[in-house]
């Protein structure tokens, strides 16, 4: 229920100190993180490589034609052109002159003249291809004076290059053309196989990386969880008193869970997206800096748009979540209070109020939708716009002979991945923020000082006798509110005392000091003559067993409840104790000691729960026993068993009893009457009765209570 009622918005701005603390938990896993880092580099390389492969395939094999050159048809124009273009940028093929477009345009521009040119597409057979095809065969065409084959060396092409007018390709017979392109087909095949190999490896790498990161994230979360839990276990009772247990539960469960995504995704993804953005940019700059600048401009728009919208979308989202939280707690509260709603016949009014917050929530959701409805289509419009711009400027470059088709296609591939990192980083940032909010709360608990388990004053020696002495003990839980005001008394080894008095007098507080659940303000509590403040908590609590007033039963078997989570519970010992205490009901239950108890022991009677707590106290054979008797109604059947059991657990042990029952008090050697933090009467039962003070009244009260039952 708590989860539903408290749908608080959890976000926090980035904090370097918190981050550094969070990263410290990742340190033990540096090797795995390094592996992941390498894998991510591989993935980034794949993302960059695939468009390059496609571009290469197009330029070298799929369409190895070039439109870099123009033909000049008349000798007069050729003379003008030759005057302005250097020999390395022109060549002659079948009696006509061909010029590099860019050089020709520049030369003519400088000279202030113009020539008539014809656009041509040249089919280029690189020397390697020529060798693979068998050069003699192609020579046949050259020797036959067919007009479309040109053979190097010429300064423009590498020696051994064959060039022909692409339009002339159609003059070949289909088989000739198939022969001519067979090398290209082979090239496509090998690049395709490379492509296939890369995507298969990338698939494996991507999958492995995902799993590796999850393993790292989960292990870190596990570590933090165990560490926090152990820490809470070691916090002083004072802290537990003032902190609702539900809050501690949330820290160990939900808050830590919120960190998982940060470790397994957000951190690494930010690195990956950064790599990708930089990598793609570098490669694109190398291919064509102008087109890259165009894309950069669009990217800047994208970042700007994201920056503007992210804040308002996040705020709208936050508002919607607050509204939802309000709706859910409204409903939950009306279900819990449905009796009141019906008793007061206010169903219609509640429905009307609900209508209002319900509409508010829908309105908040619609606002998120509206903002997203503008933002997301705009972002994808930008990406499409980028494609269109690449096409436009790239096309112009191709027209000018400055760009190949393959490069243009490579760019169009890159456009599809270039804008993703910005959006992803923005999303990861949200994950980081909610992780920060949780981290802050977790660290606040972690920074609470732990209880001193082994005091520095402990000299390694533990007492061998177990008598108890209080010497002028003062205690306050909150400053200025003294609960105990100068308590002094002594219990001999094996002796027993009873503490009686009205509620709130400080009886339970006195008993809590023996196992050092709290530290005294002044005075001393001695166990076997040694100040408990100098003894290890573990020693004290192992030897001083505490039977608390309200028995806390954990869900689990009876055995587990008696042995309290001991790894290998001693079933024989537990059975012995159960028999000794006369807990016959255990034998009647299905499975006996292994009978499963529900949360809080709801499937047992109050008396049975009480008996289990006795067995629990005896299991570790304590030297001192403190019994805070239950006041709650106990069925008559259990009552007799319990009284018998109390006598048995006290036998032979130093004991202190916070007593509510007459029959228990009678067996005790000495009775202390406590009121307002002081001992006001003490003595045996008979002495106190004779005195006619508070004790006499208490005694009467109890005899009446028992008479009633």
């Amino acid at each position: 229920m708590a989860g539903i009622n408290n749908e608080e918005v959890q976000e926090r701005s980035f904090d370097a100190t918190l981050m550094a603390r969070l990263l410290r938990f990742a340190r033990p896993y540096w090797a795995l993180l390094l592996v992941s880092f390498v894998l991510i580099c591989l993935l980034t390389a794949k993302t960059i490589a695939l468009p390059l492969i496609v571009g290469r395939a197009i330029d070298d094999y799929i369409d190895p034609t070039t439109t870099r050159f123009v033909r000049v048809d008349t000798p007069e124009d050729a003379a003008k052109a030759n005057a302005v273009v250097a020999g390395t940028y022109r060549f002659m093929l079948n009696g006509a002159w061909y010029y590099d477009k860019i050089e020709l345009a520049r030369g003519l521009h400088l000279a202030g003249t113009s020539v008539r040119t014809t656009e041509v597409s040249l089919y280029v057979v690189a020397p390697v291809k020529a060798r693979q095809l068998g050069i003699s065969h192609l020579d046949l065409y050259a020797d036959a004076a067919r007009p479309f084959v040109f053979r190097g060396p010429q300064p423009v092409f590498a020696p051994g290059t064959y060039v022909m007018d692409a339009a002339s390709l159609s003059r070949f017979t289909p088989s000739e053309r198939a022969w001519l392109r067979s090398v290209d087909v082979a090239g496509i095949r090998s690049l395709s196989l490379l492509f296939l190999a890369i995507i298969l490896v990338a698939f494996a790498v991507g999958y492995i990386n995902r799993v590796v990161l999850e393993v790292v994230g989960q292990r870190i979360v596990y570590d933090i969880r165990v560490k926090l839990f152990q820490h809470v276990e070691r916090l002083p009772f004072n802290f537990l008193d003032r902190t609702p247990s539900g809050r501690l539960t949330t820290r160990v469960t939900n808050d830590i869970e919120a960190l998982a995504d940060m470790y397994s995704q957000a951190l690494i993804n930010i690195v990956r997206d950064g790599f990708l953005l930089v990598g793609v940019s570098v490669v694109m700059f190398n291919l064509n800096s102008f087109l890259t600048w165009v894309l950069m401009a669009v990217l800047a728009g994208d970042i700007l748009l994201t920056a503007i919208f992210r804040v308002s979308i996040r705020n709208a989202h936050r508002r919607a979540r607050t509204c939802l939280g309000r709706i859910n707690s409204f409903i939950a509260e009306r279900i819990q209070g449905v009796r009141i709603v019906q008793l007061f016949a206010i169903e219609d009014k509640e429905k009307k109020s609900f209508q209002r917050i319900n509409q508010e929530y829908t309105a908040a959701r619609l606002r998120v939708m509206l903002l997203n409805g503008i933002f997301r289509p705009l972002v994808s419009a930008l990406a499409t716009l980028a494609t269109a711009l690449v096409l436009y400027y790239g096309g112009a470059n191709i027209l000018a002979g400055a760009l190949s088709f393959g490069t243009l296609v490579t760019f169009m591939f890159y456009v599809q991945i270039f804008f993703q990192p910005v959006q992803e980083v923005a999303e990861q940032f949200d994950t980081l923020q909610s992780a920060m909010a949780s981290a802050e709360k977790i660290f606040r608990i972690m920074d609470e000082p732990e209880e001193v388990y082994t005091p520095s004053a402990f000299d390694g020696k533990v007492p061998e006798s177990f008598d108890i002495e209080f010497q002028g003990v003062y205690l306050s839980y909150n400053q200025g509110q003294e609960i105990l005001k100068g308590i002094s008394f002594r219990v001999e080894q094996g002796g027993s005392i009873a503490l009686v008095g009205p509620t709130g007098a400080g009886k339970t507080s006195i008993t809590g000091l023996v196992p050092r659940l709290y530290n005294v303000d002044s005075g001393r509590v001695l166990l076997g003559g040694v100040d408990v403040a100098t003894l290890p908590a573990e020693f004290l609590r192992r030897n001083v067993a505490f039977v608390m007033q309200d028995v806390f039963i954990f869900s689990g078997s009876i055995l587990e409840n008696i042995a309290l989570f001991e790894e290998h519970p001693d079933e024989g010992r537990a059975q012995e104790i159960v028999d000794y205490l006369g807990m016959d009901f255990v034998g009647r239950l299905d499975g006996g000691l292994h009978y499963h108890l529900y949360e809080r022991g709801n499937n047992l009677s109050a008396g049975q729960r009480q008996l289990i707590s006795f067995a629990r106290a005896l299991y570790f054979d304590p030297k001192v026993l403190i019994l805070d008797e239950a006041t709650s109604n106990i069925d008559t059947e259990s009552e007799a068993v319990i009284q018998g059991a109390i006598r048995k657990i006290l036998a032979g042990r130093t004991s202190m009893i916070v007593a509510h029952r007459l029959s228990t008090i009678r067996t005790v050697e000495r009775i202390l009457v406590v009121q307002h933090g002081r001992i006001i009467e003490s003595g045996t039962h008979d002495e106190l009765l004779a005195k006619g003070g508070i004790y006499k009244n208490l005694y009467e009260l109890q005899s009446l209570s028992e008479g009633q039952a």
Partner: protein
Amino acid sequence: MATTESKQKVGALRHIGPIIRKYWARYLAGILILAAVDISQTVIPGIAARVIDGLSSFTATKHTLLLALLQIGALITGITVGRYFWRYLIWGSARYIEQEVRADLFSKYLDLSADFHDVHKTGDLMALVTNDLEAVRQSLGDGLLMIADFFIMTTFTLVAMLRFNRSLTLLALIPLALIALFVMRVGPLVFKLFKNVQDAFASLTDYVEEAMTGMRVIKVFAREKDVTRGLRDKAAGLQRRNILLIRLWGLTGPLIDLLGSVSVLVLLWYGGVLVTRGSFTIGGLVAFNTYIGMLAWPMAALGQAINLFQRGQASLARINDILDQKPTIQELPDACALREDMRGEVAFEHVTFEREGHRILDDVSFHIAPGERVGIIGPVGSGKTTIVSLLTRAYDPSAGRVLIDGVDVRRYKLADLRRAVGVVTQDVFLFSDSLEENINLTDLPVGEEEIHEATRQSDIYANISEFQEEFGTIVGERGVTLSGGEKQRVTIARALLKKPRILVLDDALSAVDADTEKHILDNIAGVPSRPTGIVISNRISALRQMDRILVLDAGRLVEEGTHSTLLRKHGWYWRVYRRQLVEQKVEGE
């Protein structure tokens, strides 16, 4: 066959159908806009292809490039605007439907009777308005969108692709179809693994919750180490299941990536070869690449949509189950009004009440005259509270009659009956609202003076005045925490404000001290209208001044009389009285 099927369908939509129908025009408009957007999207790659092919055949000029840029720009603008509107129309409708269903569920919760609420845990009812409603909304929003988008996008993209090249289209489509198949197959498995993770987390939470609540016991017995071991087990279990989930779920991203890339590979290889043969163009390759990108998402979405619908259906069934329920306590069609000038006479005639085979009240009869004040006492479980429940018709008796002013309570209008009887319940319940709203629960205009008067009578006025916000103080989780006694007194004020003819205090003074108790009872006795009073208490001090006291034990009326006549009987009442007397003495010292 067809009829039974359609009947079932009508059955599943029996509650939600009429709501959806209100929004059909929006849905239709949304889908039409979606279709327009999708079609526009399929046009763009065609333009790109034309440009590229134009470049290689020297038909393209700066002018045609600019034209293409403008065309694409215009299309983008249209697409952007269109996307905004289909979001609003389709997703927005789903939100409106969600809102209405939530309101229906909430109303149903308020209308259903006590027996329903006795057996349904708050958490389960909350799950319906949170998780289940969300699943239904996702079906009606994302689910519908994905299906529509899949069909429209696939159809138009395929048409566009087939126009380019048939064999290449079919070949490139195979890996994409595998995406849909994969998501469809793996989705339920992933869902199951995800459920496992949630279960492990719930089990961890239970463990931690129990450990935190029982931390004192753990520390007192120095069992920290052993309890940590249990936590390690639970946390490791959660870790293991998370990794198990990712082992399957982690496949999804890389696999969709791989299959998409395989499509591109088909394009590169087979399409590339086609270009060398002159039967395909580079422009076509570029266009196809875009088409593949456009198809990959709807393919994954198709699988996802099917899973969404399955989940939504299961959730809708659960919601329907609740909406089908009818309150067991219902007003008779000819119910009569309870008049303002009612006398406030109460009578139980041989009333027996049984629940789940237990007899809670056994042939109880008594009569309370108008204005009379009667106390009821008895041990836990003797049926005291049940008397109040029957009087206000939280339940109806199994046998016998409950009468007010001589008329069976079942003959009155329900709201009238409940307004006429002012009950202060045993377990105080305050809403997380202001004190004023908690005291005046009705929406009727109540004068400030009346509220002050009611709070004075219940002896809480002074406390409220001490708060900075006075009556505007918010109480509960997000506000001021009141003590048990303060809460009780607020709830008494709440009942007094109703000016009921019959006032019932059900153990309503257990958390206030004896003086306050007496003070409040005196105040109530002094109310000029002199309502009939029923005071249920285990404290004799609260009952001794009553006109008459009923003693209940195990569902039967065992003693009856005034304080003094009951004492003379030396029975159960007498024993309790003696005990409390000494108790008082001890506490008083």
